[in-house]
């Protein structure tokens, strides 16, 4: 029994003792609610922390608003850019992509070099020095290196690495480890997943970088800061016109800068996830609370009547029972916030692995804590209110009388199948279920929700596997993708085919372009492929491999949505390379693909568009892995090759970073879903026991064995569970599709594909929860004090 403080009102004492008496049930309900609160707090505190870190960093580092790359422009253009209306500040740079030779790694890595002004810090996109020192203007081979790259190789200030710069190998010395707002999320161009080991960003003295790439007195990259209230599309249009003669690659606003865009997508995803999953959990909790309280109140019928007779008002009694729910919810909210803060701080650690800020501190705001607690209390009160209202509304005189014996009748099963001759216990079970179909239905729904949340939690593993299967087995069938530094004649393919270990090659031609549909536009790469690619395939999630039509573009359905176009519409394609032709090109087909925003064309059609001959910019290839090291060595020695992307490392990266993160949240989802499943099932079983204890005790007195009465009670639970299993999968399927619909964005389109094994696991878990709950209840049933149960009136 609970020890009571002296000055506690009697109804509150009753409240605490009643709760203590049903503590197992209360804990089960609280656990369900706490699971919801934990998810909410974990996701939202991460959202909040990332958003704060981002806002502070962008602001502090003067992260630019518009970015553009070009071939080469003379320095005087900088003044003209600064004069564009709405432009507040301009920073020009020299940038270059190089192949790196990192000590201890046989395959080549890609390096992105960015110029640093001598004797001052960059005007925009300032970098943050984590360790080491700034560059010495007198030493041309010093670089500052991005933190993630250095971490993944264990590089420290003072370490050296080789780089193929404009065809010549140079030794660079790392003097400082830095962060940049442009590379919070560092991903190599054209890659789908970040690879900290194979993509590094470096800052180098402008003079030495410019001289290496013949950029003295010019620049090939520009960042703009806009005055507040300036429309970026207008500025972008002007900047593009200005830079066009200099090989401008099309300016992009900050929202489409790759790092900022990925971070935005991640934040949006966190936000939707942080709302949707907890909403489902809390909804289930409210429902369970409602059922539990309705049944508990039915057992308190005569006590409610006595309180009324003593002069307690309906409002006082209702408040008393609502407090049951509020206390349970309060405990749930507080523990949910505590666990959520803990889980959230673990999540933040994982974000740190691929989003880099100078400081990414875990922040749990008071507002979020209060919102979680208030939200939980409101949900609990909603769950409780109808149950309480119904119980309190019963006229006292009626409640004083024992409930009239429930009106049973022969069940439909019995009258339909008369020759069936059901056993006595089965008859009792069937009649009970049929007498109160709504009650049975409510219990079934409760258990079905348990199946559903578990099913959805587990299904995410399938979803990730399907994504991996689609991307790494069906789409990318090549072992490696080579990219040339410059587009080359198709004959280059023969050279690649003769590299050590190469078995099969397939040409690829990618060209940067801006695609316009009316006012909407995107700057991206159009990939030219053979008519029916064998290695680098285009896969539609429902229809499989897609052939390249002789003419026109094949777009990701998502890109079609972004641009607001459909099959048959015409797009304006502005090529941002070479002679920069502009053409109207029809959309020949849309493909429902899984990743990114893609635009493809038949190789020959792309050549026609570019008015060029047989040209390739890269190749997909398969290889004999026994020759791997010789292959790498050869590739590193060829200046014409800008980079090589291996499928197995990409897959490894995906598993390491994205999948690690996803798997943790999936794991937590599954744990909480299991808690819900157990909480719901245990509650149903306990409620049935308290409702039936008198009846069951009477049967025991009449000579029934424990096994026989257990059969009656547990048989009922078993039937409800069996009904709930398929229903739960149906509900879960809808929930999963709802979540998936929210999950769809420009980065991912996940397919809600569920393997039969997942359904089996969800079912087995709920069946296990049912068995454990039944055993716990069975133990109580065995200890049923027959005399006490029968002596007390109902």
């Amino acid at each position, binding site marked *: 029994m609970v020890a009571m403080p002296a000055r506690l*009102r*009697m*109804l509150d*004492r*009753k409240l605490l*003792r*009643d709760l203590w*008496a049903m503590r197992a049930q209360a804990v089960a309900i609280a656990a369900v609610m706490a699971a919801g609160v934990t998810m909410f707090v974990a996701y939202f505190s991460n959202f909040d922390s990332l958003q704060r870190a981002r806002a502070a960093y962008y602001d502090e580092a003067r992260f630019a608003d518009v970015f553009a790359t070009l071939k080469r422009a003379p320095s005087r253009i900088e003044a003209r850019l600064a004069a564009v209306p709405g432009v507040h500040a301009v920073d020009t740079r020299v940038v270059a992509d190089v192949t790196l030779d990192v000590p201890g790694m046989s395959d080549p890595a890609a390096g992105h070099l960015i110029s640093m002004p001598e004797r001052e810090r960059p005007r925009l996109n300032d970098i943050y020095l984590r360790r080491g020192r700034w560059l010495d203007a007198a030493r041309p081979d010093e670089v500052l290196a991005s933190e993630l790259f250095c971490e993944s190789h264990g590089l420290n200030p003072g370490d050296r690495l080789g780089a193929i710069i404009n065809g010549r190998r140079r030794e660079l010395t790392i003097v400082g480890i830095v962060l940049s707002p442009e590379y919070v999320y560092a991903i190599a161009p054209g890659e789908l997943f970040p690879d900290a080991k194979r993509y590094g960003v470096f800052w180098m003295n402008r003079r030495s970088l410019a001289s290496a790439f013949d950029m003295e007195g010019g620049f090939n990259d520009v960042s703009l800061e806009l005055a507040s209230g300036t429309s970026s599309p207008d500025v972008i249009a002007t900047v593009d016109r200005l830079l066009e003669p200099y090989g401008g690659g099309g300016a992009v606003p900050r929202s489409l800068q790759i790092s900022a865009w990925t971070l935005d997508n991640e934040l949006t995803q966190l936000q939707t996830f942080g709302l949707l999953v907890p909403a489902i959990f809390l909804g289930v909790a409210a429902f369970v609370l409602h059922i539990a309280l309705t049944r508990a109140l039915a057992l308190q019928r*005569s*006590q409610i*009547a*006595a*309180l*009324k*007779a*003593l*002069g*307690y*008002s*309906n409002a006082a009694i209702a408040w008393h029972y609502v407090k049951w729910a509020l206390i349970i919810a309060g405990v749930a909210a507080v523990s949910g916030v505590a666990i959520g803060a803990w889980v959230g701080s673990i999540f933040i650690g994982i974000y740190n692995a691929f989003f880099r800020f100078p400081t990414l501190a875990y922040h749990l705001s008071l507002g979020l804590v209060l919102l979680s607690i208030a939200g939980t209390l409101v949900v609990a009160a909603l769950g409780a209110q109808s149950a309480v209202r119904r119980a309190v509304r019963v*006229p*006292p*005189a*009626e409640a*004083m009388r024992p409930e*009239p014996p429930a*009106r049973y009748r022969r069940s439909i099963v019995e009258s339909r199948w008369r020759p069936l001759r059901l056993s006595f216990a089965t008859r009792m079970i069937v009649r009970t279920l049929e007498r109160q179909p709504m009650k049975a239905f409510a219990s079934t729904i409760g258990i079905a929700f348990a199946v559903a949340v578990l099913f959805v939690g587990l299904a995410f593993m399938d979803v990730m596997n399907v994504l991996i299967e689609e991307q790494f087995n069906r789409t990318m069938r090549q072992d490696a993708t080579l990219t040339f530094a410059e587009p080359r004649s198709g004959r280059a393919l023969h050279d690649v085919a003769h590299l050590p270990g190469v078995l099969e090659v397939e040409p690829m031609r990618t060209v940067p372009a801006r695609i316009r549909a009316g006012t909407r536009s995107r700057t991206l790469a159009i990939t030219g492929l053979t008519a029916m690619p064998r290695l680098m395939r285009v896969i539609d999630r429902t229809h499989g491999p897609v052939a390249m039509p002789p003419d026109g573009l094949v777009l990701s359905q998502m890109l079609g949505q972004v641009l607001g176009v459909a099959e048959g519409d015409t797009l304006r394609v502005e090529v941002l390379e070479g002679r920069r032709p502009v053409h109207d090109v029809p959309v020949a087909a849309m493909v429902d693909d899984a990743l990114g925003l893609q635009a493809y064309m038949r190789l020959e059609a792309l050549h026609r568009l570019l008015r060029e001959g047989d040209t390739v910019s890269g190749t997909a290839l398969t290889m004999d892995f026994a020759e791997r090291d010789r292959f790498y060595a050869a590739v590193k020695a060829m200046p014409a090759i800008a980079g090589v992307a291996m499928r197995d490392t990409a897959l490894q990266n995906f598993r390491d970073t994205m999948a690690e993160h996803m798997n943790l949240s999936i794991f937590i989802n599954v744990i909480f879903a299991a808690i819900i499943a157990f909480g719901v099932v245990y509650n149903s079983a306990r409620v049935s026991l308290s409702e039936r204890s008198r009846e069951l005790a009477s049967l025991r007195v009449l000579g029934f064995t424990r096994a026989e009465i257990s059969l009656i009670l547990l048989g009922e639970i078993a039937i409800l569970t069996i009904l709930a299993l398929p229903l739960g999968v149906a509900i879960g399927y809808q929930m999963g599709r709802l979540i998936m619909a929210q999950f769809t964005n420009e980065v991912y389109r996940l397919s809600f594909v569920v393997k039969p094994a997942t359904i089996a696991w969800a079912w087995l878990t709920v069946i296990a929860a049912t068995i454990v709950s039944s055993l716990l209840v069975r133990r109580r049933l065995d200890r049923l004090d027959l005399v*006490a149960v029968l002596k*007390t*009136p109902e």
Partner: protein
Amino acid sequence: MTSTAPLETSESVVDTSRVFTARGITKVYEMGEVRVEALRGVDFDLAPGELVVLLGPSGSGKSTLLNILGGLDVPTAGEVIYAGQNLTTADEAVLTTYRRRHIGFVFQFYNLIPSLTARENVALVTELVDRPMPPEDALALVGLGQRLDHFPAQLSGGEQQRVAIARAIAKQPAVLLCDEPTGALDITTGVVVLEALERVNRELGTATVIITHNAAIAGMADRVVRLADGRVAGVETPSGKVGARELQW
């Protein structure tokens, strides 16, 4: 609070010689397919300080009448006047106040709150009113001064019923309504419970209505009202009122 204080603050002409005046009480229950006429035009009066036994077989309508007098139920027809106030037209809030300030209930099955001790069950009521009797005094009055901190499950039936009586009288009600208070008890225990009721009636002057199907209890009444089949079958005033201890059954 022992006298018939008005229900509402408004002053009205009150017939101080009557606690209750009930006229033509009729109660019909519709229970699904069955229609039960529990009361068919019952008249009933109760004087201050009076101890009345309502006698009748089960199903005669005693409990229904008691519930209506206590404001737990409303009649289908007829009226009940308490201290100048018509209970039959009162709403739920007024009836709650009425029960809270003026009525003490004792039920056949005690209806104690199982999660509260004897003292706490009494305190449950004393918290509701302005000038209650201390719970300990109320329990001492029914002879349970030594069992204050026991839970209902730790008390015998007779003890539980005496806690219920202490709970009913602790708020110093004008009327004590007892529904088969000894119905679930054996003779010896029943007598102890009746003694407690008798003592409360005598020492506090609380008007008391006891309903029972046990004719022997009638001996301790100032007046006996017999109910049969929902009607008053007779009213008698026993010549020699005896103490509860001398009752025989």
